[in-house]
């Protein structure tokens, strides 16, 4: 197939995928499943953000739930204090970015296992603050949010309305990541992942390149945190726990780190198993674990690149030998 043909097919596939996503609230009448779809999209935004670091920068973070939770707590705290949605969301983004800068300044002193341990420690500090700083966070009882915003008169109080808003944010997140990874800064980031010493010798500021990637990752994570608190209308320390960071990491790795669609597929897998399969199987954790083991064994590169590889192999095998 020619290059132009591939581009055309890609455009058609994207159009069909977007149309299918838009049609979800119409096709699925049950509110429960519309809410599940909203959850998939908001966690996909979270996983897309984490993937910027894990997949494109080669930096595995186990503290991203902390950044996710900070944005969610800021929204909840300001709304309870009587401020409006716009101010709460903007402040959450600013505080989320400031916290990301702090995380980055500390964690980027190292790479590899040390980077993982620093992010884990930072995430645990944030979780500890959420759990113990009761005057601000209400401790284990969490903070409830009474209302959802109504941007441009669109009510987000209904499941389809919230889904539509989440879908718009999700699509913006996908497009922004797609633009980023194809940009010079994205190419530089991938270079620092593969050959940091070489990139330094070529004139790149490796630390600063990673810092900006961290900021972009933190921005998407904060956006996901804001969606989360509005979706649940509640935030508690559980959302910031190490298990939440690990789940997001599993979304990225199981779907395919360093790919655009991988984190989306990974988010869908984790959310569906957690919410849907758990209704039928008591030990759903066991099943999730078994799925991950199967992915690691049969598609170590993740579901999306693994499926592409297997499809190509099958296609080649089906062609008549010349």
């Amino acid at each position, binding site marked *: 197939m020619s290059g132009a043909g591939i581009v055309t097919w890609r455009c058609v596939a994207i159009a069909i995928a977007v149309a299918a996503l838009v049609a979800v609230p119409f096709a699925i009448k049950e509110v429960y499943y519309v809410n599940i779809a909203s959850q998939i999209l908001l966690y996909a935004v979270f996983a897309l953000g984490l993937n910027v670091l894990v997949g494109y920068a080669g930096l595995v973070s186990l503290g991203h739930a902390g950044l996710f939770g900070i944005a969610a707590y800021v929204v909840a705290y300001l709304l309870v204090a009587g401020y409006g949605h716009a101010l709460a969301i903007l402040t959450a983004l600013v505080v989320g970015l400031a916290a990301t800068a702090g995380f980055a300044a500390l964690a980027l002193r190292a790479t590899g296992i040390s980077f993982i341990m620093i992010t884990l420690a930072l995430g645990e500090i944030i979780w500890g603050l959420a759990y113990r700083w009761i005057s601000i966070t209400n401790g284990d009882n969490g903070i409830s949010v009474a209302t959802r915003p109504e941007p441009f008169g669109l009510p987000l109080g209904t499941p389809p309305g919230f889904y539509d808003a989440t879908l718009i944010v999700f699509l913006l997140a996908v497009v922004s990541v797609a*633009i980023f990874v194809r*940009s*010079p*800064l994205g190419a530089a980031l991938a270079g620092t992942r*593969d050959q940091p010493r*070489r990139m330094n*010798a070529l*004139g790149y500021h490796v630390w600063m390149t990673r810092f900006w990637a961290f900021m972009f990752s933190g921005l998407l994570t904060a956006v996901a945190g804001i969606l989360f608190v509005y979706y649940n209308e509640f935030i508690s320390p559980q959302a910031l726990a190490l298990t939440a960071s690990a789940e997001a990491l599993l979304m990225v790795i199981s779907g395919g780190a360093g790919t655009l669609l991988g984190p989306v597929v990974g988010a869908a897998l984790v959310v569906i198993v957690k919410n849907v399969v758990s209704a039928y199987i008591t030990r759903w954790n066991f099943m999730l674990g078994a799925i991950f083991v199967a992915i690691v064994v049969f598609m170590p590169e993740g579901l999306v690149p693994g499926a592409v590889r297997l499809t190509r192999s099958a296609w080649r095998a089906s062609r008549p030998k010349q």
Partner: protein
Amino acid sequence: MSALVVTNLNKSFGGLRVTTNVNLDIAPGERRLIIGPNGAGKTTLFNLITGEIAPDSGAIALFGRDITRMPSRKRTHLGMARTYQIITLFAQDTIAHNVTLALLGLSPLRWNPLIALHRQHHLAARGHEALERVGLDHIAARPLAQTSYGERRRVEIAMALAQNPKVLLLDEPFAGLSIDERQDVRKLLTAIPRDVTIVMIEHDMDTALELADRITLLHFGEVIVEGTRAEVVADPRTREVYLGD
């Protein structure tokens, strides 16, 4: 003004002195060959000059500007480029992308997160020019993983040349190459104009001596002989520690 001046440079790793009072004065356009037995500190000297490791004492100046404490990446922006003894490239990418990364390293565009890199046609054109110089333009779209060792060596040199360096440091550019590939690389290095100063580490004396104007012999981190090709080859200390009888 000298292109590169190294003054009383010292470096130790723990109790091991790897560079001891090294002095170099390399003129603009000069081809300087650094030789010495394995472990003499040649690559360490390159790493000190390029800023990948910091010296314990001494000074380095590039065209009269003190760069001793300057980060490695800034030295690249001042016109210093290098290749590595162990080929250090981006194996997942194409040859063209490798060279584009080299060009992008010196461009303010490298901070841009919004434009599409593959649409920066001026970078692609300059990349093809650099690849043409090393004879790889016809396979620019080939993934690096599908290239031979000799081609990768030439990609390394193309990346360095693409940055239009004033001082080019080549760490064993002939290592691991076949006889034909050596001839190709030798021709390529000979064709580099004299506005580029070249400092080269090389063990292949037959090939390297043809290129060198002056030679510095390192032994246990110290400069023990320095001079023209004839002077260094004739020096008994060169035969004793490096060439043999």
